[in-house]
């Protein structure tokens, strides 16, 4: 009996619910911590980003107008699907980063729990940040937080799964859609998460995932006029000034975060809307 040969996975992009290769035909080599070849993920291009923005914009209104209850159930569904594939994700993290199996398990479990935590926020964030305002006149006046729109996310280089989930979950919880750029040196967990997302009833285009170089793509995220916000938690410090200057072109809301679990991560990509109506007979 000869030894069975593994069937290796081709890592592609995740755009509009499909798994296309990069239009550029480029890939780059990912090796593990011992220098062993792991995979050739896509080196996504500006055109891939543009395609992803089109998909994200098309999905945004529908996702934002889904009920908060529905969005919560779908985020919870992503957690359920990930729970069922814990071992696969842990093994992938182990192989790529060289952490102990125990550490890898912990990261996967923390990621699942974080999805559950954000799932619970979808129908509570308005109570936290909304208000009725006692204006000095016969008007009913209230303020509600609303999803910002299309948000970009430059994922942290380390903490390839937890850091990634900590970016996309709060962005989509409120009704935004997202284009995430996975960790450059550890993109595989994010691309495997796309398979989980694809089977969680999340509408196509709500989460779009690219792999590639943040030094190449982040400036295009910043200057894209149809991206409303940008989470730059994973951006190299030396690129921050350039990215913020680029974002000024359409006054993008640009933020970065240290905490993984915080309602502030949801609210950073929401806008307050205040509505007035007269009271009278």
């Amino acid at each position, binding site marked *: 009996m000869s030894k069975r040969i593994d069937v290796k996975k081709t890592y592609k992009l995740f755009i509009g619910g499909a798994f296309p290769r990069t239009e550029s035909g480029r890939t780059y080599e990912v090796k593990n911590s011992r220098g062993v070849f792991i995979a050739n993920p896509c080196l996504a291009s500006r055109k891939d980003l543009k395609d992803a923005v089109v998909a994200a914009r098309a999905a945004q209104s529908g996702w934002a107008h889904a009920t908060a209850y529905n969005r919560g159930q779908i985020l919870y569904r992503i957690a359920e699907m990930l729970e069922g594939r814990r071992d696969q994700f842990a093994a992938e993290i182990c192989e790529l980063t060289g952490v102990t199996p125990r550490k890898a398990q912990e990261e996967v479990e923390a990621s699942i729990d974080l999805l559950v935590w954000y799932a619970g926020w979808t129908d509570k964030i308005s109570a936290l940040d909304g208000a009725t305002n006692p204006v000095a006149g016969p008007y009913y006046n209230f303020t509600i937080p609303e999803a910002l729109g299309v948000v970009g996310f430059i994922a942290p280089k380390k903490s390839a799964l937890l850091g990634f989930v900590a970016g996309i979950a709060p962005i989509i919880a409120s009704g935004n859609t997202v284009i995430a750029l996975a960790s450059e040196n550890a993109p595989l967990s994010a691309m495997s998460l796309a398979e989980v997302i694809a089977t969680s009833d999340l509408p196509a285009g709500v989460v779009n995932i690219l792999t590639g170089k943040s030094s190449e793509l982040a400036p295009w995220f910043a200057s894209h006029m149809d991206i409303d916000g940008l989470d730059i938690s994973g951006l190299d410090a030396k690129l921050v000034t350039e990215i913020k200057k680029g*974002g000024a072109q359409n006054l993008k809301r640009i933020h970065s975060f240290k905490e993984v679990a915080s309602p502030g991560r949801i609210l950073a990509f929401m806008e*307050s809307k205040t509505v007035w109506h007269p009271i009278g007979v």
Partner: protein
Amino acid sequence: MTFEYAPAPESRASVSIKPKYGHYIGGKFVAGEKHFPTINPATEEVLSSISLGGKKDVDAAVKAAKKALDLHWSKLSGRERGKYLFRIARILQERAREFAVLESLDNGKPIRESRDVDVPLAAAHFFYHAGWADKLEFAGVGTKAKPHGVVGQIIPWNFPLLMLAWKVAPALATGNTVVLKPAETTPLTALLFAEVCEQAGLPAGVVNIVTGDGSTGALIVNHPGINKIAFTGSTEVGKIIAESVAGTSKSVTLELGGKAANVVFEDAAIDESVEGIVNGIFFNQGHVCCAGSRLVIQESISDEFIKKLQKRMEKIRVGDPLDKNTDLGAINSRAQLEKIKELALAGDAEGAERWSPECSMPNKGFWFAPTIFTGVTQSHRIAREEIFGPVLSVLTFRTPQEGIDKANNTPFGLSAGIWSEKGSKILWASQKLKAGVIWANTFNKFDPTSPFGGYKESGWGREGGRHGLAAYLKGVTHE
């Protein structure tokens, strides 16, 4: 028969304007080196000579603000800070007449508006924020929230005192000290506000006022001693500010331009809507960032509506801002008048149809008749660019969704109006419209308890309400 109105001018006696003003720095008026005139836009009379703030003045103001922060302001409890704000609110109420007359003289707005809107709302903003000063731990901003330190504030000419109040009140309530630059063409009420600070016994340096033009503003924005910038003005300048602070630790809030749509559905109460549209665009000569400068009206009622609107516009009284019967005052400056004229000519050239009522206007000063353009399409400049004058562009729609799409077809997102007698339609439209402030069956209403600010290129952050406090604190939970 027509009713004629006898002149009913408000007296100027309550106001005394000095021939020359310095900057208000560290509790004293400091003479500037260069000066420029501020004029009454209704008569072109020179009102006073104003100091043009340069590097030395901005340095001195930032230094004074930092000193006041370290020595006095940061040592006070919230309760004591709040008492100063209450005092300011009361003094503004006591001197309301003086402020209203001075505002109308320097800005050109009707006394009816400065008296009934600008000044009372300015006092209300101080009163509201005074009460927050000792309750910040309950404001939902987290327990780690701290003031930024020295805040640079740059305000526009359309609501000079009111914008000062929107900026200074929350900044002081949260424990910051201030370097404020009033607009080049309307510095007088800010300089009078310095007297209010004196009368309130506010520690020297807590509020510093440096007058000047855009170059003075740029010095404030780029000063290393400024920890936070709050700017109200054009989107163009807002983007420059966003770029210049990129990569610094400065925090920024921006209240910028707008091109608000007033969406009128066929089931609207027509007469009420006509009043609302008139108020939406002709309030303050249309010099309002949230002005309802596009009328987006359902085709089925468009003709009837425009006729009624024109009839109503014939009753608008244009003239002396100090006359208590005046509806539409002077355009704030020659430069602004030129900009309005240029965009109106673009409206003619691009094929829209211009209409204005016959109205006689003074020979001197800067004036523009209330104007509507019909037959406007979405690509016209007058449908896309902020005119910031009494010019309304009319677009039509057939289905409600088309109305929403047209309303949202702009890079701005400050405000929007909805006119309908059907509750479910109002709530549907209010969800769909991409704007920070939605007025349904009303327009241009403001209140210190009500957050104000825009989506998209209309700015960053909110002013007013609990939400406005976050802008002046760092380490906020929701930052």
